[in-house]
């Protein structure tokens, strides 16, 4: 059984569990949306003193911060106890495309060229992560949600705005993939 769990899980298990988590949070009287935590953390750090957007009762969002803590623990449990240590099983076509950019085939979950500490603390590596993260934080709040809030919760509730946001996610993702990455690497 443990051997089976240690293998990567097929996509449908993940899809089913994510839908289950969304429904679970609804029955807890909450809604699934992860990026709100970024606003909550800014607010908890005192950003409300200078900026009105962060001046709200962030303690009412403690439940979502606990969900965040759980997500970190879940990652730890997977890495320590549930991992086979096998590299990510991406398609051969992706491996070849990435090799042309100078990114070697997977030897774990993340590429060494971006996520190893030696890469992350070069100027290029640092800026990739910092600016990438910056765009995620800025864009998620501008669009009013991220993958969980729009692509999952919003589209499940047949919200046209969420569909527009997801189209935006793809416009941006395709620009990075086919224009920015070849320029950066």
């Amino acid at each position, binding site marked *: 059984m443990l051997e089976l769990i240690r293998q990567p899980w097929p996509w449908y298990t993940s899809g089913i569990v994510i839908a289950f988590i969304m429904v679970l949070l609804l029955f807890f009287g909450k809604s699934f949306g992860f990026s709100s935590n970024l606003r909550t953390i800014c607010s908890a750090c005192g950003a409300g003193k200078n900026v009105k957007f962060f001046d709200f009762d962030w303690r009412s969002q403690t439940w979502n911060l606990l969900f965040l803590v759980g997500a970190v623990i879940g990652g730890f449990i997977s890495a320590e106890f549930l991992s086979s240590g096998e590299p990510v099983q991406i398609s051969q076509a992706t491996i070849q495309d990435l090799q042309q950019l100078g990114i070697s085939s997977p030897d774990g979950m993340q590429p060494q060229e971006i996520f190893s500490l030696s890469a992350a603390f070069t100027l290029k590596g640092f800026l990739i992560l910092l600016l990438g993260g910056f765009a995620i934080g800025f864009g998620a709040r501008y669009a009013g949600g991220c993958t969980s809030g729009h692509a999952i919760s919003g589209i499940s509730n047949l919200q046209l705005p969420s569909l527009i946001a997801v189209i935006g996610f793809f416009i941006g993702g395709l*620009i990075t993939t086919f224009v920015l990455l070849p320029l950066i690497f």
Partner: protein
Amino acid sequence: MKGIKFIIAGILFGIVMSKSEAISWFRIQEMFRFQDFHMYGIIGTAVVLGTIATFLIKKFKLRDYQGNPIVFTPKEKSIPRYIIGGTIFGLGWALTGACPGPMFVNIGYSYWAIFIAIAGALSGTYLYGAIKDRLPH
């Protein structure tokens, strides 16, 4: 310990995102290059089941565990905010290979470099809050 159920839900989220490799930069690249069904399968299954669940919750007017009605707040109507905000988000998503949830799951996976992306995400959120009234919504 009213909060423990949220931690458990988060743990489940962290495990399933890791085990289905949705926290991997490689998987996000594969998705944006349309070279495998994997990520589409994950999001697609979640959306199909989520849509059915949302429909049933509304149809049968289900209540949460405290007996309050489950309410769905419609998203504010706009096009520019979703298309511009979404595009900026997508630029970052493909660059770091992690949306906000997986960013934090990666900490558990000991990819410490992700803290740089999280610092970026918090700064981005802060800047949005500071200049939001001057942006088209």
